[in-house]
């Protein structure tokens, strides 16, 4: 790491000593998982650079922008419409905690039998060991799962929180209710930023975020090729994880640049895996940075991940917002319609997720599906058998994995995943 960021972190009121411990383990983890891969696309250099200085490069940008008067909104969820914040010249940054490092701190406030993403997120804020959690002017939560809802109540005692009410069903009246919720969020964003959101500004922001979606989708599109796998799942995951934190315009540029290279790789027949490598679709709970555990185990066990159906995957970019609306109300409805198409297990019923996984399995020509849930994620765990049954009926082998952020089940996972790959090869 070239630049010493201690002054930045000190100014943010971080616990420098504990944070140094985190900084000392990340390069090793990144090196083991990422730099050991062969023939990586050159376009990954951008994300390698960002992750090499993950608590420095982007946080410094955010602080610089704040000095100019811009406001930073932290979010946890793909249901929060970035468009509204962008329209008010605000900045959105993802916040989800993906490391075991933050879990013990979170357990000081939360029950141990809660999902590690929730515990790590609260732990990162309370332990003062993540700059993004220090920088944000306001955190935007949402009523997705019960665990997050209750965690937000605790977090709200420490930092300004705004909670969006996300309906848990998808009837027309629920979509309309979410449109109303977006209108309320617009008022909140105007108040925090001091900037008015006009029809023109929201229309422009919708275009910006749609461009990001299209660029990320272009990268994914290249992974559908049945002969050439131009990028590892591990690399694609990194792009997705950082997409949550990055400026949306730059994110789209970088993803488009990567897509150019990957499309050329398809023409030239450049694959990062040997011919015949088993193709896996990974579905389930989100994989927040730096959670690379399953990708690493799967892709070093003789298989390749060609699609992630989760919040750090297709859920983030699938479906565009209708750009033809000319009134704010029309745009709220268009936004609500797009966001309510995301198939999270916090909805009931959620059969559309099963349909989507089946469709993606076909599109990406996968040999098998690995369905994973973070330990204690009750909603995803409960719908796992229904998903499994549907996949089996479609003749697609499936493996269910429940795991957390620790590494102590790595060998058991290696056995199960290895056996699954052997099963696909027979």
């Amino acid at each position, binding site marked *: 790491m070239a630049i010493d960021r201690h002054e930045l972190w000190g100014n943010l009121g971080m616990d420098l000593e504990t944070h140094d411990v985190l900084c000392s383990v990340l390069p090793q983890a990144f090196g083991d998982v990422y730099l050991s891969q062969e023939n990586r696309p050159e376009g990954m250099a951008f994300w390698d650079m960002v992750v090499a200085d993950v608590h420095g490069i982007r946080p410094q940008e955010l602080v610089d922008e704040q000095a100019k008067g811009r406001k930073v909104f932290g979010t946890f969820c793909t249901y929060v419409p970035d468009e509204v914040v962008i329209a008010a010249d605000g900045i959105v940054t993802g916040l989800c905690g993906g490391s075991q490092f933050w879990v013990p701190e979170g357990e000081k406030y939360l029950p141990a039998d809660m999902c590690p993403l929730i515990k790590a997120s609260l732990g990162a804020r309370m332990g003062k060991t993540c700059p993004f959690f220090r920088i944000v002017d306001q955190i935007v939560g949402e009523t997705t799962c019960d665990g997050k809802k209750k965690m937000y109540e605790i977090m709200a005692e420490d930092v300004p929180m705004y909670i969006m009410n996300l309906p848990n069903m998808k009837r027309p009246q629920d979509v309309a209710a979410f449109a109303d919720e977006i209108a309320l969020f617009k008022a909140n964003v105007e108040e925090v930023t001091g900037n008015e959101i006009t029809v023109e500004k929201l229309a422009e922001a919708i275009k910006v975020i749609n461009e990001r979606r299209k660029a990320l989708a272009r990268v994914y599109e290249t992974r559908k090729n049945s002969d050439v796998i131009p990028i590892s799942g591990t690399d694609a995951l990194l792009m997705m994880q950082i997409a949550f934190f990055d400026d949306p315009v730059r994110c789209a540029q970088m993803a488009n640049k990567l897509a150019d290279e990957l499309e050329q790789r398809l023409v030239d027949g450049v694959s990062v895996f040997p011919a015949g490598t088993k193709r896996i679709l990974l579905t389930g709970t989100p994989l927040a940075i730096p959670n690379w555990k399953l990708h690493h185990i799967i892709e070093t066990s003789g298989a390749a991940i060609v699609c992630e159906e989760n919040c750090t995957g297709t859920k983030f970019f699938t479906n565009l917002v209708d750009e033809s609306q000319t009134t704010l109300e029309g745009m709220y409805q268009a936004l609500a319609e797009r966001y309510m198409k995301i198939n999270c297990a916090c909805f009931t019923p959620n059969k559309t997720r099963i349909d989507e996984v089946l469709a993606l399995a076909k599109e990406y020509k996968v040999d098998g599906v690995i369905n994973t849930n973070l330990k204690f994620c009750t909603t995803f765990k409960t719908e796992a058998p229904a998903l499994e049954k549907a996949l089996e009926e479609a003749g697609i082998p499936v493996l269910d994995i*429940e795991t957390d952020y620790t590494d102590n089940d790595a060998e058991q996972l290696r056995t199960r995943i290895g056996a699954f790959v052997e*099963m696909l090869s027979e």
Partner: protein
Amino acid sequence: MRIGIDIGSTAAKAAALEGDELVCTLVVPTGFNGVDAAMRLADGLRAQGIDPTACDANVVATGYGRISVPYAGKTVTEITCHGRGATYLFGGNGTIIDVGGQDTKVIQLQDGKVKKFVMNDKCAAGTGKFLEVIADRMGVTQEELATLAAAGEPTQISSMCTVFAESEVISLIGKGEPRENIANGVIESVITKVASLAGNLVQGDVFLTGGLCDNDYVLERLSSHLGKPVCTDPNARYAGAIGAALSI
């Protein structure tokens, strides 16, 4: 000569096949060191005139310590190996339940191939480790534990967790509960957990492999929980090693 080495968490097994005939089986405790267990198996095989380190020997390693066998040419996971070993012993269709030292696996076999499997989490409940810990606490061997259990009255051990179950056993001992009854509760706890893991995966005939396979009481209780007879074979504890030999 095809040789399979199965380094489990508790026991290390070897099986040698001449053609398709099982000519030799061996078992040693794994102890603290997988490599050492692999070398002791090699010594044991040599004593029977089979040298696994000779250049013409074909050796495949499996099990938890499969990477610790210096003389193996390749490794295959224990799930695939148990499937192949069970196919050899029982035919290629049905359900295999393997209660190992730290893993319990349920494997659905169809035409000699693994169709579906589940494995316990990293928790020791429902594995041999649970029996080992409790048998140690009661000062008996696992075989004695089963013999005691067969003579005991049903006794509730409500904790799934091995550590909590151990304290539960200690309080039962403190209350003067007969050893037979405690043993009965302990075996029942393991079988209940294994049967729930097997859940709706059970299809066709059911076969038990692994270290508990020669335990009649375990077979009887498992049959009762699953509602169908559970069969086994004297060589079933070598299923993984046999499957490894067949993976050459």
